[in-house]
């Protein structure tokens, strides 16, 4: 059923969107997302994908057009990155408030300034509270498969929320990896056509996105928050189905390294692969260390995370964004609030690294581990690799 092809991961994501039979793609090109939508525009132009490609003049328009298209009942896809995501900001809230199952790939990239096209998570961390389902992928195969799964999650009538697949810019988007592609029949069986629960239809008039006076705004917000919380079991269900179909092992939270280890690295995104290698090497040296990898970021899978860190005395939380003026990076903040009041909560050591595309070799994670064990990292957070030899 599956054939293995060496391909750039961006192109594999475009192929996933083609296999998912998207009806509308509205997008603006921005580095390092460009190859995805460029490839999709080729598909549409040469008839390989029967979809409407809307080449908008900015990301604000890309998301606005996506809102309109999803409201009309079309399976809608877009992709963006960094400043483009920031430009979409105000419409992102509208998409979730209107319960529109748009699927978007975010090729994670640092935000200006200074201008940087390289990878970190500062773009998406500025969008934590938009009410979208958000997942992080670690490799090309996962990027392909979760991109298809994202439609199934978003369009499930128990969810009906837009969904973001986060994939690290360049580190993943521009990598050539051997990827197994499913055939159209398999994807069609996995992903049925989009059945909107409500859509713009002159025969059944509705007003979508109306004014929310103070007497209704709170209730509308609660409805969306509840939908997001309720999406967790659906994400799990879709991943289980995907695992069954494609022979994978995706879960909301993943662990590796020594079971019940005293020290665990916590990662999200592609740096998890480097940490994985470091953890394997440390285990081989007899070190008591494991790793917890967060795949589902919103809604945060609290119970699954706690179970995946059971027995740990120390968590080395790797953050890919700075939260200026706070006590630590955004993932560490999240985990501190998850762990607050939990019995035997592990200590959190926060390391912010790989900012603005700064390289973090595998060896350095072993160094981070040694420093954490020796209690030599900052109590708040460590800006790893910062040159402060003034």
């Amino acid at each position, binding site marked *: 059923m599956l054939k293995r092809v060496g391909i750039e991961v961006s192109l594999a994501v475009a192929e996933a969107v083609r296999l998912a039979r998207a009806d509308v793609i509205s997008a603006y090109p921005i580095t390092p997302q460009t190859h995805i939508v460029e490839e999709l525009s080729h598909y549409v132009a040469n008839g390989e994908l029967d979809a409407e490609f809307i080449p908008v003049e900015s990301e604000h328009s890309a998301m606005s057009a996506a809102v309109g298209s999803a409201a009309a009942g079309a399976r809608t896809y877009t992709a963006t990155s960094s400043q483009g995501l920031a430009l979409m900001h105000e419409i992102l809230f509208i998409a979730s*408030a209107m319960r529109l199952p748009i699927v978007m790939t975010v090729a994670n990239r640092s935000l200006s300034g200074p201008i940087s096209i390289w990878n970190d998570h500062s773009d998406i961390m500025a969008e934590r509270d938009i009410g979208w389902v958000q997942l992080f992928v670690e490799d090309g195969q996962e990027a392909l498969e979760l991109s298809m799964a994202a439609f199934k999650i978003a369009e499930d009538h128990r969810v009906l929320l837009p969904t973001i697949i986060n994939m690290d810019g360049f580190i993943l988007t521009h990598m050539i990896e051997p990827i197994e592609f499913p055939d159209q029949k398999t994807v069609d069986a996995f992903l049925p056509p989009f059945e909107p629960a*409500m859509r713009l239809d002159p025969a059944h008039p509705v007003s979508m996105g*109306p004014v929310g006076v*103070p*007497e*209704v705004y709170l*209730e509308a917000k*609660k*409805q969306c928050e509840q939908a997001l919380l309720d999406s967790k079991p659906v994400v799990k269900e879709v991943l289980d189905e995907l695992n069954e179909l494609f022979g994978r092992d995706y879960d909301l939270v993943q662990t590796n390294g020594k079971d019940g280890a005293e020290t665990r690295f916590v990662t999200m995104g592609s740096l998890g692969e480097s940490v994985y290698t470091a953890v394997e090497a440390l285990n081989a040296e007899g070190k008591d260390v494991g790793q917890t990898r967060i795949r589902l970021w919103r809604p945060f899978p609290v119970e699954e995370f706690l179970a995946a860190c059971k027995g740990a005395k120390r968590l080395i939380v790797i953050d890919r964004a700075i939260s200026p003026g706070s006590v630590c990076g955004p993932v560490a903040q999240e985990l501190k609030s998850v762990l607050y009041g939990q019995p035997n909560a592990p200590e959190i050591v926060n390391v912010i690294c790989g900012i603005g595309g700064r390289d973090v070799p595998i060896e350095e994670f072993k160094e981070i581990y040694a420093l954490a064990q020796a209690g030599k990292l900052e109590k708040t957070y460590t800006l790893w690799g910062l040159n402060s030899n003034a």
Partner: protein
Amino acid sequence: MSKNSICAWQELALGCAVVEPGNASQLRTGDWRTLIPVLNEEECIKCGMCAVYCPEFCISEREDEFYRPDFDYCKGCGICANICPKDAIKMVMEEK
């Protein structure tokens, strides 16, 4: 506290959509008003300019052929008084 709410969150339509047509008529904006247009029938030539310019579309021709506002929706903006070629409308403070 729920006294301030229109309905329970579980009962809201998906995405807070409005599923019944014509519901704008239920939103009576007339209670925002401080000034009220008063028509001088002696001066009015029944030209209908006020009806055309009223941003609330609340002025229409009545049985007596005069153009009169529906005070459930009139906001008291005074545009009708401004546009009237005969100065037949005066804006006066409304007494509640």
